[in-house]
């Protein structure tokens, strides 16, 4: 069972190289952006010197720490957004491509159950892709920090004092890892729905998957005047973006009045596991995704392609 899962997930990584390519490409572009920005600043020697001097003398360690942590969150958020789009395309393709390229009968000729196969695709979307993205986030942060250190050293600053000492890397990475995984759990109803659409769609799975998500809240509101679907979708998609915006604003407040939000000072401490797992919405979402995934297994099992 577990050996089969490992083989099946490896198979997913062989087939969908975008699982690596997408986050790595985003990470490289971001690193290149850091490098280019630093290169462009080379002509503004005076301003850079003043900036470095100001930063070196800014507040105490906790303030420098907040700024660095806040800056390091930027690549995480961008890669996370890229990852979410990747999961949509991956899950819509995962059970559709094997029918389109007619390899499904070959896969089904091996002693692997339909449930094992569909579960491997759900696990890939829910955990493997977030884990790969996490590794790329860490690598991008390290590359940016190393590039910036070299630049600061060339400009005559102290990189250890400015960057490495204040960055709460362990706390930040622990929080990022927890964040991508919890967020992924939070979004599983969409993953389940996409897998289900991927299992039954004859063509255009993206359109088939998107239509109900857009139409259901509109129809519900128009016919019944209620907004159950709207709220259910809102709480999972728009709400987290608003929360992230709030967190970003809190980071900006640092420069105005040197107020350091707890989130940015010690990200790991700020993650509330208890509150997260106590949310009924989380469990309702997991049940919904389990229903969709079970439905996808049945479609794969009972569908006759002939």
């Amino acid at each position, binding site marked *: 069972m577990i050996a089969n899962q490992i083989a*099946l997930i490896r198979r997913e990584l*062989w087939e969908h190289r975008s699982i690596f390519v997408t986050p790595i490409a985003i990470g490289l572009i971001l690193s290149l952006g850091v490098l280019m920005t630093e290169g462009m600043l080379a002509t503004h020697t005076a301003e850079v010197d003043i900036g470095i001097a100001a930063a070196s003398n800014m507040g105490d360690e906790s303030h420098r720490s907040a700024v660095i942590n806040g800056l390091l969150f930027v690549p995480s958020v961008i890669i996370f957004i890229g990852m979410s789009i990747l999961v949509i395309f991956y899950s819509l393709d995962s059970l559709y491509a094997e029918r389109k390229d007619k390899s499904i009968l070959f896969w089904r000729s091996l002693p692997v159950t339909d449930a094992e196969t569909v579960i491997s695709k759900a696990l890939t979307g829910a955990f493997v892709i977030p884990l790969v993205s996490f590794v790329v986030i860490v690598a991008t942060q390290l590359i940016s920090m190393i590039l910036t250190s070299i630049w600061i050293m060339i400009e005559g600053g102290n990189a250890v004092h400015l960057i490495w000492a204040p960055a709460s890397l362990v706390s930040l990475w622990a929080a990022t890892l927890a964040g991508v995984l919890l967020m992924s759990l939070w979004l599983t109803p969409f993953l389940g729905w996409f897998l289900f659409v991927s299992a039954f769609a004859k063509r255009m799975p993206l359109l088939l998957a998107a239509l109900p998500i857009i139409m259901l809240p509109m129809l519900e509101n128009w016919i019944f005047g209620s907004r159950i679907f709207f709220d259910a979708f809102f709480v999972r998609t728009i709400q987290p973006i608003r929360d992230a915006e709030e967190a970003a604003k809190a980071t900006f407040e640092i420069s105005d009045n040197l107020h350091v939000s707890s989130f940015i000072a010690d990200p790991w401490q700020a993650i509330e596991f208890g509150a997260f797992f106590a949310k009924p919405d989380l469990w309702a979402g997991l049940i919904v995704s389990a229903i969709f995934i079970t439905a996808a297994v049945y479609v794969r099992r009972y569908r006759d392609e002939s």
Partner: protein
Amino acid sequence: MTSLVKAHGVSKQFGRVRAVDNVSFEIEKGKIMGLIGPNGAGKTTLLKAVLGLTDFDGELSVLGLNPFRQRKELMQNICFISDVAVLPRWIRVSQLLDFVEATHPNFSRKKAESLLEKTNVNTRRDSRVRELSKGMVTQLHLSIIAAIDARLLILDEPTLGLDIIFRKEFYANLLSDYFDEERTILVTTHQVEEIENILTDIMFINEGRIILDTPMDSLTDSYVELMTSGERADKARKMGPIAERDIFGKSVMLFERPDRDRLGELGELHTPSVADLFVAKIKGAAA
């Protein structure tokens, strides 16, 4: 003798069409059974039922298992190559071997490697399936299947789209690398003449029903072809041939359970080819 496959009253309906209609048969261990039928006769549907890829009505047991409910257990002891079970185009040869090795308890990597060494795929371990020719893909597929210690091998039009050299090679390799008395093969094909000399048993299927199920040995006893002409042809015609055709002005008649002595007086006797017998049976069933 033990029956590996036992079907009793198996039916499969698609809407109003009965693709497989109340079919009963048995396949014993160590046989090479040919399942012959025209397009749309229900061959593939019947094979899918045997493979557990589709549900069905009636009783069907394969290696003592219910194929649809116990597909995973079944697939450990059964292999199939089908024209429609194509290898994924994106996978590399080495990845394919890795995957089958990881998921199939009865797969011998060593045997697959040594079989591949004899083929054109040998130097292409890092190639993707899409970069291989159709012949190479079939060689690859057969090498993998032959390296699985399975009790039943099911072949559904395995050589479709291959040129004649690969087709001959395919069946030669099948017999040398795969078949022994512990193993059983069920094969369907359009090119019946290519496999008739390797079959031990034969089954004809038409419109979802089995119209002939016999060992190859008894075919020669049960059927005879008479080549004759003129007056003797009229006499022969009165003896009730199941089919008649003309070749170069001579009549060729096919008889079931013939009176050989009397027929022998009327012309030349031959053993009919499976293809001719098949045509006669299908036409007879339609009449």
